[in-house]
């Protein structure tokens, strides 16, 4: 049986439990303890989701970059598994960020979508890494898929600063006066309770992320082994 993974499974279980606790505390703090914003009211609470979401996505993409680089260097399967798992989670959290940003935008700016720098950037990120996942799924050969994806993982990540610059310049050099956009970060005159909420939220997101990542990684690992076993037996 698969008993050799029991310590690993236990670790995952503990991680999952910790994540759940942090999430619950976070929810309570975000929704109850933290006071509403002076300008934006209750809607500002969405920031406790939005900020950790995008930061987690960036962390994920960094892991894709590391995994891709290591894979191209050492050609060890585990690095490719990490890259793939991180890419999938990255897409998930990026999509969530966009949805949160959109919902936050409606009461704040009056529209569900604006082409402001942040939302646009997040959308581009989503496109790049959704493309990564598509690339992987459309190449049949395992090894080729891994190599191709690794290249994209590196090129995509290195492109991000350039995309940042170009989109921000574009959006700030030609600001039409009719568009109102709260450019200032929402932490001026910040109540300490808000910072705590943000911190707890971030902790919860991170724990949850690593929990999901460990699960997804293991799934990838198992699939590798299944493929190998099937090949051996000529199935």
């Amino acid at each position, binding site marked *: 049986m698969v008993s050799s993974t029991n310590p690993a499974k236990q670790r995952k279980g503990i991680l999952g439990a910790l994540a759940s606790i942090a999430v619950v505390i976070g929810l309570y703090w975000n929704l109850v303890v933290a006071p509403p914003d002076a300008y934006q009211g209750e809607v500002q609470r969405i920031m406790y989701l939005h900020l950790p979401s995008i930061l987690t996505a960036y962390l994920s993409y960094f892991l894709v970059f590391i995994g891709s680089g290591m894979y*191209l260097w050492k050609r060890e399967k585990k690095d490719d598994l990490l890259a793939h798992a991180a890419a999938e989670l990255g897409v998930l959290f990026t999509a969530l960020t966009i949805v949160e940003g959109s919902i936050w935008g409606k009461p704040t700016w009056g529209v569900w979508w604006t082409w402001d720098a942040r939302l646009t950037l997040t959308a581009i990120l989503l496109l790049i890494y959704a493309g990564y996942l*598509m690339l992987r799924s*459309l*190449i049949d050969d395992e090894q080729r898929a891994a190599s191709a994806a690794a*290249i994209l993982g*590196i090129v995509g990540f*290195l492109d991000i600063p350039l*995309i940042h610059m*170009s989109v921000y*310049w574009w959006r700030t050099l030609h600001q039409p006066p009719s568009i109102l956009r709260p450019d200032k970060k929402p932490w001026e005159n910040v109540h300490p309770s808000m910072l705590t909420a943000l911190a707890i939220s971030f902790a919860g997101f991170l724990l949850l992320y690593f929990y999901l990542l460990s699960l997804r990684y293991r799934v990838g690992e198992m699939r590798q082994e299944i493929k190998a076993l099937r090949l051996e037996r000529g199935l």
Partner: protein
Amino acid sequence: MTLLRQTHLLLFKDLLIELRRRDSLLTMFFFGTLLLFVFHFAFDLPPDKIAELAPALLWLAFLFTGTLGLAQLFLAERDNHCLGALLLSPLDRGALFLAKTAFNFILMFLVELVVIPLFWILFNLSAWNLLPQLFLVTLLGTVGFCVLGTITAAITLRARARELLLPLVLFPLMIPVILATIRCMESILRTGDMVEAMPWLRLLIGFDVIFLTIGVLIFDSVIES
């Protein structure tokens, strides 16, 4: 054999093939011109409005034309199973990358050389004196396109739905180039010189240099037999 010499040889080979049959060049040229016609019907605007849109329309046309060219880039190698032979020979993969990039660049350069003046004529634009500057910016953008395009073409080579996947992967990565090139050209048209456009120009050049370098270093891993 040095990198440069290898690149020369590979490039020469591709150019020679293209010179004889001119498949890619003619198709790209025809397609680019065709798009201009379509744009004219699609954007039924007075000349001054068109002047504002000119950089964007031109670049849309080049994006799609270039994608066409990319689809053909490794076609010969794939169809005739030359890729295996190329890989067995002791050639630096970086040279292959540079050669393919340069080849596509030359094709696009030739197309742009004709299409831009054609665009100016068809849409009754003035400001002919600014064409050299605009052309320079276009070339810089084209370099960026060819560099990323070659990498993307190589990694999607063995994928199903390859023709659809290539633009899907390429275009988001191209956004800095698209933004920089079009804003640059708009600025030149508006102010008459490149002063205001300098930041965009620097971004463009930076982009080209960065990914040219990465391409050379990384192309080893891209092609597997």
